[in-house]
């Protein structure tokens, strides 16, 4: 009979010609969901996934206190200018932000490219000074536009007295953006890359939490 030749999804008609279609008979649904699972679109179809409230924060964590000489970073052995890029060391950074990429060389992270969205960014470093001095730093984009409020380290901070040590802000990115830590201002004399030793690698940190 003709009705036996018909198939809707993976379901065939019964003897009355009726087809009972379940979600799992659809060609773009795979797997069998269990209680409390969700259907998640994976780009080509729907699959069951386990998820719970509070489990959806995507983040990046760079900086675990590991030791490596700053002269091994792209900064090299030379002196600092007042607007140098800063590098954060991590042999195994964590990145769960979909579409984000971390750029590094010899485990020294130089920048992070984030997809459009809103983020909380936290950045910190510590530098050696050959005499008293301070360094102001913040997150910048690749065109050196400052994106965050600034952190300050060191002594004799002049106009920056009372500042926190953490560069911290919410940043809203309308499109994919590459961000980095960069010096904003300095006072006194920052030691050369050679004389920084392991201090920046052990104290440097970048944490990025995606809000939306």
């Amino acid at each position, binding site marked *: 009979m003709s009705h036996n030749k018909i198939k809707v999804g993976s379901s065939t008609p019964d003897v009355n010609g009726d087809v009972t279609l379940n979600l799992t008979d659809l060609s773009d649904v795979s797997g069998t969901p269990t209680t409390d699972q969700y259907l998640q679109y994976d780009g080509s179809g729907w699959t069951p996934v386990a998820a719970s409230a*509070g*489990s959806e924060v995507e983040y990046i964590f760079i900086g*675990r206190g590991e030791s490596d000489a700053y002269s091994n970073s792209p900064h090299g052995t030379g002196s600092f200018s007042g607007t140098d890029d800063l590098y954060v060391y991590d042999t195994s950074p964590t990145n769960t932000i979909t579409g984000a990429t971390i750029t590094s060389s010899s485990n020294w992270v130089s920048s992070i490219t984030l997809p459009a969205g809103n983020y909380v960014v*936290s950045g910190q470093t*510590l530098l050696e000074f050959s005499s008293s001095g301070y360094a102001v730093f913040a997150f910048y984009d690749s065109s050196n536009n400052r994106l965050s409020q600034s952190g300050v380290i060191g002594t004799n901070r002049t106009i920056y007295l009372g500042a926190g040590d953490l560069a911290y802000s919410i940043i809203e990115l309308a499109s994919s953006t590459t961000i980095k830590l960069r010096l904003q201002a300095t006072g006194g004399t920052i030691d050369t890359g050679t004389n920084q030793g392991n201090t920046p690698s052990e*104290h440097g940190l970048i944490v990025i939490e995606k809000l939306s």
Partner: protein
Amino acid sequence: MSHLKLKVNNQTPNNAGDITVNLSNIITVNSPAAGQLLQKASTDWKTGTLATGASGLLNNLDVTASGNTSYTYDVEDNYISRKASNEYDVLNNISLRNSSGSYVPVGTTSWAMAYRLNPTNFPTGSAVLFRAIIGPTRYSGSSLTTQFHIGDEALSTATPIGNKAYSTPEFGATAFGLYISEGNTVDITIKIVATTGTKSAITSGSVASIQQITAKQLA
């Protein structure tokens, strides 16, 4: 014609022989709102919403710790904080371990030296972000450097999970720690990894109010 007798999920063909089947013809979905997700129920389906915020696990709110400045920190000690009067006003799924043993300034059940996470509350893959600015009793010219670790014994047996935070009487850096569960019970500590000058003491009086210790669950 025989094909006109065909029904798909009780939907009959139109005059052209086409059968339109909607999701609601396949499953029961009660008044879904924009942005909601399909969530499997025991016998059918329901709509659900996933919160995108992080869960707060730990928060220290201590404004007047009754400390004693004769108890001072050495390298390898665990930073301790008072807990006996509910100074941890947020404490979810984490238990506080009493200050005890060789790596604390003083052994007392009134203060905590570690945060215990078990695999029941934090199964493999769970991620917790710790953050701390310490508030010990300090003396001129002194410094403390802290770092989050897994483990409350000697540094040689503990595993660092974040940056070192250097602080002085004037300036306070922030220590972060990322714990990703491997399915074990662990004790997370804020270890003293370096110190200079006159030994800093446990927090006392209103200086406790500048101490910030938090943890939130990311995954």
